C-alpha cells in the first residue's frame, strides 16, 4: 500500500492518492447526499405513510398509497391511475419517436450546410431553450388560436368546428411536447451526424444496399451514441412532464406529472404523491434498463 509510485510525473504513494481522491470527491458526494439521496429516502418513507385529516403526513406504516396507485380504492378496483401511468409512458414514447424522426433530417440538413452557416442553424435550434417553458406553451395558444390560419385550416377541413381553437387537445399536447423536447434529441444526434464516416455509406451503396439498408447498416450504427443520449434526455423528462399537458391538454389529458403535482398541490395528499413518484421512478428505471439491454454494446457519449 505504501509503495512509492510515479503518478503523472509526481512521486507519491497509493495512500496519499486515495486521500486526495476522496478529498476531491467529497464536495460532489456531499451535494448529492444532501439534495438527492436524503430527499429520495424521505420520499420513500413518505410513500409508506398515511394522510392526516388536514393533509399532513401521519407516520404509520401502510401500503395504502401503493394499493391506491394500483387501482384499489374505496369503491373497488378502477384502472384510472394505471391508465394515467400508461398514457404517460405512451405520450413519452410517441414524443421521443416523433422527435427522433424529425431530428434525423434536421441534423443532416444542418451538417450539410457550410461551416459558417452551420452554427447559425444550430443556434436556431437552441434559441427556444432561452425561453421559459410556460411562455413557450402560451406561445402555442396564440399559434393555435381560432383567428389564425392553422385553426382556420383545420376548421376548413372539418377537423374542428369553425371558430374554435385547436387547444386544449391531445394534438396540442403532442405538439407542445415535441417542440419542447426536439432540441434534446437534435443536439446530441447532430454531434454524431457531424462525425459520420461517409465512406461507410458509400461502401454500403457499392455493396448494393437499398436506401433502408444503407440507413440501418451505415448511418444508424454510427449515430447510435448521439441517438441514445437524445432518447434518454427526452424520454425520462417527458414521462414526468406536467406543464405542457396541463396548459395545452387542459384537464382532459392528465399525465403522471399532473397527478403528482395535484397530490402535492390542491389535493394535499403528500403520501400518495410520494408513492406515485416512486412508481414513476421505478417505471423510468425499468424503461432505461430495457433500453440498455436493447442497445447492448453501444457506448454512450
Amino acid at each position, binding site marked *: 500500500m505504501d509503495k512509492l509510485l510515479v503518478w503523472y510525473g509526481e512521486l507519491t504513494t497509493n495512500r496519499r492518492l486515495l486521500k486526495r481522491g476522496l478529498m476531491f470527491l467529497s464536495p460532489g458526494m456531499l451535494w448529492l447526499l444532501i439534495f438527492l439521496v436524503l430527499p429520495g429516502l424521505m420520499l420513500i418513507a413518505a410513500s409508506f405513510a398515511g394522510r392526516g385529516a388536514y393533509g399532513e403526513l401521519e407516520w404509520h406504516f401502510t401500503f395504502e398509497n401503493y394499493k391506491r396507485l394500483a387501482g384499489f380504492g374505496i369503491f373497488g378496483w378502477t384502472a384510472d391511475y394505471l391508465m394515467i401511468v400508461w398514457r404517460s409512458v405512451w405520450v413519452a414514447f410517441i414524443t421521443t419517436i416523433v422527435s427522433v424522426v424529425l431530428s434525423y433530417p434536421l441534423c443532416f440538413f444542418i451538417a450539410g450546410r457550410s461551416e459558417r452557416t452551420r452554427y447559425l442553424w444550430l443556434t436556431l435550434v437552441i434559441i427556444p431553450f432561452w425561453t421559459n417553458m410556460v411562455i413557450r406553451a402560451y406561445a402555442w395558444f396564440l399559434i393555435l388560436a381560432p383567428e389564425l390560419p392553422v385553426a382556420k385550416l383545420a376548421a376548413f377541413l372539418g377537423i374542428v368546428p369553425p371558430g374554435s381553437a385547436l387547444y386544449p387537445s391531445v394534438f396540442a399536447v403532442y405538439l407542445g411536447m415535441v417542440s419542447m423536447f426536439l432540441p434534446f434529441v437534435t443536439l446530441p444526434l447532430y454531434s454524431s451526424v457531424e462525425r459520420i464516416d461517409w*465512406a461507410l455509406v458509400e*461502401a454500403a*451503396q*457499392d*455493396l*448494393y444496399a437499398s436506401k433502408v439498408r444503407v440507413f440501418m447498416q451505415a448511418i444508424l450504427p454510427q449515430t447510435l451514441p448521439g441517438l441514445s443520449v437524445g432518447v434518454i434526455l427526452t424520454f425520462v423528462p417527458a414521462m414526468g412532464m406536467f406543464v405542457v399537458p396541463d396548459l395545452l391538454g387542459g384537464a382532459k389529458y392528465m399525465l403522471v406529472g399532473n397527478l403528482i403535482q395535484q397530490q402535492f398541490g390542491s389535493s394535499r395528499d403528500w403520501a400518495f404523491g410520494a408513492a406515485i413518484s416512486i412508481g414513476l421512478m421505478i417505471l423510468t428505471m425499468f424503461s432505461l434498463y430495457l433500453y440498455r439491454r436493447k442497445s447492448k454494446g453501444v457506448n454512450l457519449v
Partner: protein
Amino acid sequence: MSDEKKDLSIRGINKRFGEVRAVDDVSLEVPAGEFFTLLGPSGCGKTTLLRIIAGLEMPDSGKILLGSEDITTFPATRRQVNTVFQSYALFPHLTVYENVAFGLRSRKFPAKEIDQRVSRRLEILGLEEMGQRRPDQLSGGQKQRVALARALVNEPDVLLLDEPMSALDAKLRAQVQVELRRLQQKLGGTFILVTHDQDEALIVSDRIAVMRDGRVMQAGTPEEVYDLPETQFVAEFLGAANLLSGHIKEGGIETDIGFLKLEKMPAWSKGTVAIRPEWIRIRDQQPETNGIQARIREVIYRGTDFDLWLDPGPIRVRTNTYKRFKTGDKIWLELAPEELVVLNG
C-alpha cells in the same frame, strides 16, 4: 468472376468541381481480365475517375460502357463493380463474416449460397479463422484482406482499388503488391488500381495510365511508360530521370554537356533527352560514342547500389559496381545512343 467477359470502355469523361477540372476528357479502354493502374500525383483526378467508374460520382459528360451496356447513369447500387476503399470502410458493428456477406445479403442471395461464397473468399484470402472477429480486432493487413474479400465475393465485372496499400507499412506493402498481382491472375477479373506509388504501379499492372491535372498523359504497359516516356512529366514521375535539353543536329543532339549521337532521330528540332540513372554506364577510358567526362560531386550509398551525383550536371548515375567511388574522382560515362529518348520541348 462472371462468365461473360466484359470490357470497360471510358469515353470522353469530364468532371468539374467548381473551377477545377478534376477529370478532363479522359478516354480509356480496359479489356476484361486486365490489371489496369491509374497512376499520378495527388489531385490528378485518378480517384475522381475511379469514383465515376464506381458510380459514386456522376460525370458531367462522357460515357462509361461495361460490355455492351451503357452504365453511365446507373447508381453505384446497380453496377456490377465493387470497390476496395482507401480507408477500407469496413462496417465496425459487423463481424468479418457479416462484412463479407454484406453485398450478397443486400441482393438477397439464399443463405446457403452466401455461406458457401463467403467461406470460400475467406479461405482464399487466409481469413478462415477471423470470421467472428470485428474490424477493430484486426491488423491493417487483415483489414485490407477483408475489404478485398468483401468486394470480390460479389464477383464484380470490375474491381476498383483506391490506394489500398497506403495504410500499410513498406515491408507489408511490398508483400501485398505481389499477392494482389497473383490473386488477380488466379481469379482472372478486371482490376483497376489507383495509386501514386510508381513502384507499385510497375509491379502489379498489365497497363498503366499516367495522369496529371485530370488528363491521361500516357497509357501503356509498364515497360512502355518506363522505357519510352513521351513527356518530361512521365519520365520524372516514373522513377528518376536525367533530363538534358538541347537542339537537334545532324545525327544527334547538342546538349549542355556535349553532343550526343542518337539512333532514332526525333521529328522536332528542340528536345529534351531523358535517360535513366541506371542506364548510364561507367567507363575507365573514353568510350567510342557518346562519351562524357564527369567528376563525382556526391556518392550516395543505397544498400544494393550507389547513386553518383556528377558535374557537369546535375547528372545522376546509378551503379551496382563493386568499384568504390570517391568524391572528386573523374570518370567517363557512356550514354548508349539506342537508350536515349528525346522528348518534345
